[in-house]
């Protein structure tokens, strides 16, 4: 559904993405792995319209979206849970969730998605009236994912959802991602936790300093000697 061809992005003089091409097929989980500064987040930010491409194309269902404003990209069905969660600390949990639904005007659908998010993350329901800033790191991550789901995306982008979480929570995060995918959402996942990401990914791309150096199914990359050495600790 999402197709990126020869994408280049410059960030204040730095050539952050140097010609990336990738495909995200409908209904799949696709992951981008790589070290810090490899261009994973920049790729997601370019898709979301927060950074402008220098050249190349980003097509959603055959329609070019790379020139659109971020709010129009959201309307076309792409939502992102950004790196660092970016919860609005002064808004309540419920307000944060409703912010995710900002572009929608279908109260019935919003109510259904809110019920679904509360089912996925019962903690958020318990804390609906608490300020976002009072949540623990794990709860904030749930909120970031739930908030993105409130936009009813066909493509959900997750940037480092396991970053900074206790190991026991990391497993929960990946279970939830699979549960979301089973509901028919396509997922584009950026992760430093390469092992966990590759295990649930249908397809994966390895990025190094702005280029894709390797791609394949999650399983292929899990067994690839180069990947094992560089990202999975041998």
């Amino acid at each position, binding site marked *: 559904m999402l197709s990126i061809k020869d994408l280049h992005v410059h960030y204040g003089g730095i050539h952050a993405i140097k010609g990336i091409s990738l495909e995200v097929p409908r209904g799949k989980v696709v992951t981008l792995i790589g070290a810090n500064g490899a261009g994973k987040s920049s790729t997601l930010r370019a898709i979301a319209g927060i950074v402008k491409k220098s050249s190349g194309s980003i097509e959603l269902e055959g329609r070019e979206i790379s020139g659109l404003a971020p709010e129009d990209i959201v309307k076309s069905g792409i939502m992102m849970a950004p790196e660092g969660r*970016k919860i609005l600390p*002064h808004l309540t949990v419920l307000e944060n969730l409703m912010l*995710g639904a900002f572009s929608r005007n279908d109260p019935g659908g919003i109510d259904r998605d809110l019920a679904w998010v509360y089912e996925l993350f019962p903690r958020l329901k318990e804390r609906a009236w608490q300020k976002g800033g009072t949540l623990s790191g794990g709860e904030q991550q749930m909120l970031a994912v739930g908030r993105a789901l409130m936009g009813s995306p066909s493509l959900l982008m997750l940037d480092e959802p396991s970053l900074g979480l206790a190991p026991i929570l990391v497993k929960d995060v990946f279970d939830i991602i699979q549960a979301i995918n089973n509901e028919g959402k396509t997922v584009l996942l950026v992760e430093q936790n390469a092992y966990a990401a590759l295990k649930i990914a249908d397809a994966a791309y390895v990025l190094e300093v702005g280029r894709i150096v390797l791609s394949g199914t999650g399983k292929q990359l899990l067994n690839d000697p180069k990947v094992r050495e560089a990202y999975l600790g041998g």
Partner: protein
Amino acid sequence: MSLAMFVQHLLNGLTLGSLYALIAIGYTMVYGILRLINFAHGEIFMLGAYFVFWGVTLFRLPWFIAVIGAIVVTSFAGIIVDRVAYKPLRNAPRISALISAIGVSFFLQNFAIVVFSAIPREVQRPAWLVKVIIVGKVRILPLTLVVPALSFVLMMGLLYVVYKTKPGLGMRAISRDIETSRLMGVPVNRIIALTFGMGSALAAASGIMWALRYPQLQPVMGVIPGFKAFIAAVFGGIGSIQGAVIGGLILGLMEIMIVAFMPSLAGFRDAFAFILLIIILLIMPTGLMGEKLEDKV
């Protein structure tokens, strides 16, 4: 001083304070979202006053229609100021937008001199607003009841929009984190335009009531109230709407009371506000209700 006198001063103070508060809200909302002191805000206040009296004298509109019309036209003036003078500078250093704001302020003053002329104009007030009512020993100008009451209604309306509606949620989100708001689909430029529109509407309402209270129009009439409302916003904690209201009320009451209790200092009434500003900036720069400057861990 008798109790009756005190009540009269209190009403005068509340009236002046409400007018400051309405202007201060516009400063604080724009600052909250763009971190910009909109120095043209005092001129927006002035435009609101002129527009309504244009409507009444030139077009012979009924007061009610002229007031609504002037508020609407002034809101659009505020939105145009943003579009022309601030929007192109969104990604520029903050000082550029600030200089642009000062430029717009001068431009609008001179625009008013050209269009409305520099000669001060007298305002013909509806008689019932200035017909003194005597309650016991207290002499009450109906205006000093109407102004605080109307201001209260406007402020409640504003708080409703900010805290209970979707555009208000967008405003509160943008004020904290523009990029994340964009990622969530908030149309940032539309919300910013709405913020300018609402702030300008309140400034226009204040300007109109100011002209009823002090019935003279002139192109520079927005300068001193604008500065004082800015001080009120800083005093209350810039970025906080509640702070702007409290700051405005306290400043208005203080000004009237100082003049009432120390008539010999009446000539210095404008200086008090600026002394207050210096003291606040020295001892509590975030104001009464401002966000504490916390170090993020």
